[in-house]
């Protein structure tokens, strides 16, 4: 892949795909890498905010009868912590990383709908800002990240607090849904010629599967939160038992989204795992077909588990057992994946660098979380463990072990590609070990606390319960996590200016993103590649090697067929425009306004329609 465009053409091509300068230019940029980098930074800022909220929780709970936060503030804090991490960090960050890497991994110059991509970023950011403004004005939501009705309804949560939460859902789920459409279309229609589905990197498969899950899961929470808003604002009765509604309707709709949601957080990580393990074992992942089938099976199963969040209700026992069986069975495809990775590591030539350390942590932490998940899947066990600190331990083991650790691994792995510089290995190891040890010190004791009777979402506890030592231990662990994240931030800030220069392929990877410079050209590929195998950089180049003939003076991409990536046609994509930003602004006005008056939906629709058209 060494042929180049003539210099004049290359410069023109780069110019075509670059972002315009100046302030208006900043709002007009729609190059997918630009948007993705902003998206990653924004979600990471939310991660830090969510982490600070967690520290506040731990400081309050370090001692019995704590006085750091009063009950009202504490309830806002834990609601904001959960909502931030789940809605403003966990899924969006995956979509952000994917929207950067996918075009590069599939040999494309862009995502399929670049303006919608930009709109999705802006609407997400504005929604998150709205939520935090409410929190800083002391009208933040305080009904928990899953806001059960009737507590979250108009009678027991008066005022605007829960309205902001419910509308934040609308913002973030709209963004997530649009990103899913973009990723599906990009993956299916824009792969380099020759990259059949069978040759797609496993990370691309995980994003395809996740995006389909998003299409079918996120509407449930959108519907649930919209019905909650109408209950609160215009007096509907979806969740009001006195007028024929049902408190459990909320739970069914929410968890129909909520369970797939955690798999939507988990499955992209499996893609990170595959990429990193392949590279640091210096061999392809064992069992490609088994891996893909496992992903698809996991996605299907994930939609059949939601009632396991409702075992303590008075639903029929026989029905609950069905969900126990499904919840246990989903462990099987995940186990297959784990066995395949272990086989890959075992038969490869391992190369211990920071990304791999984070990935290895997954095997310890996620597996522990999975085992406690099996326990929670049992109805009788769940009767004791539900809504106790055991669940808090479980969810953090699976979310941090299954998502955050691989994500940090992914950042260490792809930071050179994004910025052209390597992160410090030394700081990386400190980051890793502090995180790993701190995490276990923080969260392992919570299993015991739950078994010893401590319920969750409590702002304090009496001193005669005997829970004080373990709570203090957990707080110490949380502080270690905070230090480790601080080290990561320092590592990023220093390495951006002074890190070692990375070439196009610092780790010896096999997939296409490593064939371009670091950072990549604005047009990704000056001469897009043709693909003849699963790990193109590890194989001898086939013929033909490269594509030529795409325009240099406007943004043009190559569209290929869905299954076999045969040539189809060329497509003219839009270049920089401020209208996605302006449309997001207009939509924000409509969404926020509608919390205060239903007429906002009518009047606000006009500017939205104008902006969306232009």
């Amino acid at each position: 892949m060494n042929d180049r465009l003539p210099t004049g053409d290359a410069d023109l091509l780069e110019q075509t795909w670059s972002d315009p300068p100046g302030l208006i230019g900043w709002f007009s940029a729609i190059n997918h890498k630009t948007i993705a980098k902003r998206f990653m930074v924004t979600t990471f800022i939310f991660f830090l905010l969510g982490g600070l909220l967690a520290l506040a929780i731990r400081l309050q709970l370090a001692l019995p009868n704590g006085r750091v936060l009063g009950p009202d503030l504490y309830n806002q804090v834990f609601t904001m912590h959960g909502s931030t991490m789940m809605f403003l960090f966990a899924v969006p960050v995956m979509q952000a990383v994917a929207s950067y890497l996918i075009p590069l991994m599939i040999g494309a110059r862009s995502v399929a709908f670049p303006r919608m991509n930009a709109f999705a970023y802006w609407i997400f950011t504005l929604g998150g800002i709205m939520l935090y403004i409410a929190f800083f004005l002391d009208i933040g939501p305080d009904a928990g990240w899953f806001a059960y009705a009737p507590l979250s309804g108009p009678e027991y949560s008066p005022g605007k607090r829960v309205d902001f939460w419910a509308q934040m859902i609308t913002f973030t789920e709209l963004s997530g849904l649009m990103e899913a459409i973009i990723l599906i279309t990009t993956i299916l229609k824009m792969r380099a010629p020759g990259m059949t589905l069978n040759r797609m990197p496993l990370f691309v498969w995980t994003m395809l599967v996740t995006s389909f899950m998003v299409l079918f899961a996120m509407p449930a929470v959108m519907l649930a939160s919209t019905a909650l808003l109408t209950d609160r604002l215009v007096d509907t009765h979806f969740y009001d038992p006195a007028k024929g509604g049902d408190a459990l309707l909320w739970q069914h709709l929410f968890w129909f989204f909520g369970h797939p949601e955690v798999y939507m957080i988990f499955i992209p990580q499996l893609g990170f795992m595959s990429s990193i393990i392949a590279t640091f074992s210096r061999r392809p992942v064992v069992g490609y077909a088994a891996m893909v089938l496992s992903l698809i099976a996991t996605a299907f199963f994930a939609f059949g588990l939601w009632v396991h969040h409702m075992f303590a209700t008075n639903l029929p026992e026989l029905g609950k057992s069905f969900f126990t069986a499904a919840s246990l069975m989903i462990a099987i495809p995940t186990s297959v994946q784990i066995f395949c990775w272990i086989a890959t590591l075992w038969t490869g030539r391992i190369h211990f660098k920071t990304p791999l350390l984070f990935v290895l942590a997954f095997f310890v932490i996620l597996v522990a979380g999975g085992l406690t998940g099996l326990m929670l899947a049992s109805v009788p066990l769940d009767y004791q463990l539900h809504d106790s600190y055991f669940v808090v331990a479980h969810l953090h083991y699976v979310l941090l072990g299954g998502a955050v650790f691989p994500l940090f691994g992914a950042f260490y792995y792809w930071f050179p590609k994004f910025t052209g510089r390597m992160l410090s290995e030394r700081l990386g190891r400190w980051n890793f070990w502090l995180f790993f040890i701190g995490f276990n010190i923080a969260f392992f004791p919570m299993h015991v606390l739950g078994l010893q009777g401590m319920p969750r979402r409590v702002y304090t506890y009496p001193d005669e319960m005997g829970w004080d030592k373990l709570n203090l231990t957990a707080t110490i662990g949380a502080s270690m996590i905070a230090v480790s994240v601080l080290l990561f931030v320092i590592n990023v800030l220093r390495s951006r200016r002074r890190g070692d220069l990375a070439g196009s392929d610092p780790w010896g990877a096999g997939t296409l993103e490593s064939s371009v410079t670091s950072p990549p050209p604005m047009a990704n590929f000056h001469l897009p590649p043709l693909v003849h195998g699963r790990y193109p950089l590890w194989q001898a180049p086939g013929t033909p090697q490269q594509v030529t003939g795409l325009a240099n003076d406007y943004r043009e991409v190559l569209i290929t067929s869905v299954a076999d990536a045969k040539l189809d046609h060329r497509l003219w994509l839009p270049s920089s425009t401020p209208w996605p930003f302006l449309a997001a602004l207009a939509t924000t006005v409509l969404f926020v306004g509608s919390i205060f008056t239903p007429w906002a939906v009518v009047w606000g629709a006009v500017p939205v329609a104008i902006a969306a058209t232009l």
Partner: protein
Amino acid sequence: MEGPLQDALRPAGIQAEHIGSLWNFTLGLCALARPERRVWRIIGWATAASALGLVALLVADAWTSRALARLPLADAVNIELTGHQWWWEARYLDADPARAFTTANELHIPVGRPVLVTLRADDVIHTLWIPNLQGKKDMIPGRTATLSLRADRPGTYRGQCAEFCGVQHALMALLVEAEPNADYEAWAAAQRSAAPAPVDALALRGREVFLNGNCASCHTVAGTAARGSRGPDLSHLASRRTIGAGMFPNNRGHLGGWIADPQALKPGVYMPPNSLPPADLQALLAYLETLK
């Protein structure tokens, strides 16, 4: 200082025992999870072994569920428990309606006899959880659930609301006193009848303060005109060990502080402060102490 028990790892009743056995079995099974050594055949065997382990868990779960559902209910004590923001209303039912009585925040149950609890909620979702005796069950407005348990060892067991129910969810606890049947029957008999009328002047004055002030608009005291239902039934307040839903010792100091300003102890509760002249407060406390 070791307080009352609230611990799923120390079962004191048959239902919690069933769950405890399942926990031990599951923990043992999970300890067998091990990494593997070679490639494809091992992957196949490991997957099959995992599937087998899961089936074993499923069978154990089903067996335990069955056991939980089969508690013999002959001669059961019937309690209807209603969750409120942030206290527990308990109505002991009886075949003879005249023998029914109402109390709050503290339950007495006989050791060795089954207890059938009907669960309701008045406002938002609450959850009853007494880990030493049984798993938890949600109390959902508009629905009725039931929970069966039996204490097999005498003791004081602490329960706590386990579904986030608003600002004071953390301070919504319940004491369950499991005692020999004779002691239980004596307690129930005392609860059934109104407390004897006060005789000394201070307590009589205290009763005036109670009936003429805000108290009677929210609280019931059997044998008086006070028939309020927004707050706990106080007919036998002095027989309870705690106030504020299992949170504070039921003594003069705490009770006085609670009446004067509940917001200082449990901010956000629906009971307003009561600024009473000190003499009235003392009288009121004297009266409340007669409600045994």
